[in-house]
């Protein structure tokens, strides 16, 4: 399975892999792009969490809200269960770098692979592929610090990421990493020809137990214009004890 590490902010929130970003004690000075990315990634890893959130999808038909509860463990295990009426009982499990869907009506577990990963999550601007990213941006991308910019009033490092190989969806990304908190404030994903494809904005963050969480994210598919997806986290619990088999396939069907 390809690692689409470039969109891990989206994956983080939707899938419950929230970036648990601790507040850096002091602004980093003279850091290289790799070091900034590494610090950002270090901040994203935490033991366990339970989150409740909403996904607001806006398209030409109007606005839809889907609610969910996400359980996470480490950087690459999560279980998202949708609780809103239309999607109630639908679950997404990520484990061992694989993504599984469970539909309660069909009582069927589907392993997503190949081009099916490119399908949209509930008609949003997020693809299932966006949820498969994990740690290791530097493994997949060459990072270059190309400047500093203010994003929503916050000073950020502007880092260009260029794909090292062909195992990622985006040949180029630009991350705007908060200079003080080392959280991504904005990211841009580009297509092969250099055209802007998607934009992810962190509109709000919250601090809990020394971690800084993005709690309001907006994903804009630039090519589609009128559509957009917002993700809002309403409640977060960190370091909680999770049931032993919660990330097993057996548990997925219960």
């Amino acid at each position, binding site marked *: 399975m390809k690692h689409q590490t470039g969109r891990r902010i989206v994956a983080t929130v939707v899938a419950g892999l929230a970036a648990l970003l601790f507040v850096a004690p002091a602004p980093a000075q003279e850091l290289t792009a790799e070091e900034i990315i590494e610090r950002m990634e270090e901040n994203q890893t935490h033991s366990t969490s339970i989150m409740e959130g909403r996904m607001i999808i806006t398209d030409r038909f109007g606005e839809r809200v889907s609610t969910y509860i996400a359980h996470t463990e480490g950087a690459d295990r999560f279980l998202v269960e949708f609780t809103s009426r239309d999607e109630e009982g639908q679950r997404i499990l990520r484990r061992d770098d694989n993504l599984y869907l469970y539909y309660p009506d069909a009582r069927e577990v589907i392993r997503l692979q190949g081009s099916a990963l490119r399908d949209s999550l509930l008609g949003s601007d997020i693809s299932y592929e966006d949820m498969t990213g994990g740690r290791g941006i530097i493994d997949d991308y060459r990072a270059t610090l190309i400047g500093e910019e203010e994003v929503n009033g916050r000073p950020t490092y502007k880092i260009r990421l260029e794909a090292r190989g062909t195992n990622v969806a985006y040949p180029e990304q630009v991350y705007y990493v908060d200079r003080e908190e080392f959280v991504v404030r904005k990211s841009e994903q580009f297509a*092969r020809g250099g055209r802007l494809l998607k934009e992810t904005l962190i509109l709000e963050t919250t601090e809990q137990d020394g971690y800084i969480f993005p709690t309001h994210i907006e994903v804009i598919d630039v090519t*589609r214009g009128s559509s957009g997806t917002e993700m809002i986290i309403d409640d977060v619990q960190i370091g909680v004890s999770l049931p032993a088999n919660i990330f097993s396939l057996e548990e997925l069907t219960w």
Partner: protein
Amino acid sequence: MSARPYRNGRTRGGFFLALAMKNLARHRRRTVITAGAIAVGVAVFIWMFSILQGFEAENDRNMSRYETGDAAIMGSGYWDERDTFPLDMPVEDPEAILSLLEAEEIAAAPRIAFRGDLIVRYDPFPEDGSLQRAFYGIDIERDSRVFALSEAIEAGRFLEPGNEEVIIGRWLADQLGAEVGYPVTVTTRTRDGFYQIMDLEIVGIFNTSNPFINRHKAYLPIAVADEYLEMRGAVTAVYLSLPGMLPADADPGPVRELLSEFDGIEVLGFYRLNEDFAEVMEMENAGTAIILILLGIIAVVGISNTMLMSVLERENEIGMMRALGVRDGEIRWMFTFEAAGIGLIGAIVGLILGALLVWHAVAVGIDYGVLMEIEMDFRFDGVLYGVWHFTSMIAAAVFAVLIAGVVALVPTRRMLRRRITDSLRHS
């Protein structure tokens, strides 16, 4: 039966045959009703068979003319994964293959098939929107040697080599509110999996007799697809037009032999390329066979019943003939001839009626336009045309005659088991 002269110079067989024919005229109403039922059965069978054959032929033709050609050369394993439009199982060196094929005067057309999102925006379109569609990069010059797409342009023009342009189907254009000259954006993935964006102009709208094409597919020049998808000269398939009256009759064997030196490719015949529809057709044919069998049973029961009544009401006559020395076998033949005679009249009338219906089906067709609003896998454009299928017409007529004769045996046998005195007392 004996061949010696029996009466008026006839043989005994000839005499009873003549008597059977005379009986047809004597019981005119019964003859007309039974023959009419047989005629309707034969005509309906002929008509239905013609339509179904026409449907299958039309589907094959539309598949061949717009989607699959008569055969195709693809990367090994590509066909099994075709629904996902993989770009990583291509025919790597299509030009070498095309040179060989062209040297053998085999018409061939390379195509690059990929999936993408067709994105339209308000002004000039009525509203923003996107649809996932299949796109095909086509070799403008070679494509028309295999496919008929270039003949189906309804508005605008066909593609020109190298231009960043696209043509779409009439159905899709109507759904999007698209017109010639409107810009669209296509997002897709390159061969290596990177996102890619293409800005294209709609230069033509086609309307083929294949509704699947009109709804789901869009075409652009192969050079544009090659550049944006970074195919590095590879294509997803090379389609072939092979000699043969119908696509299904085309033989890909010689092409397989010709290309046996090439690794990593396979040559697929029309049956394989059409397997999805073939499965549907098999189910359809099974359903049709059941209907035809039911029709046959109804006809058989009807004829049996009529013949039963006919024989029973003539029990006295049978008794008299037997009393006069006519043999049982001769009586049996007489009734069989009589029933077969009714079958023959019915079959002839049925053939005439059936031929008229088939003529109408071939010339005018049956308009299923309303059904076309429903998404279907069948490749026909709403008007079903029949075909002349003389074998089935003759078979239906012969079957009607035979079955009519055979079903008369049962009641006759029953009558012949009775004693002559009982039969005579019947009156």
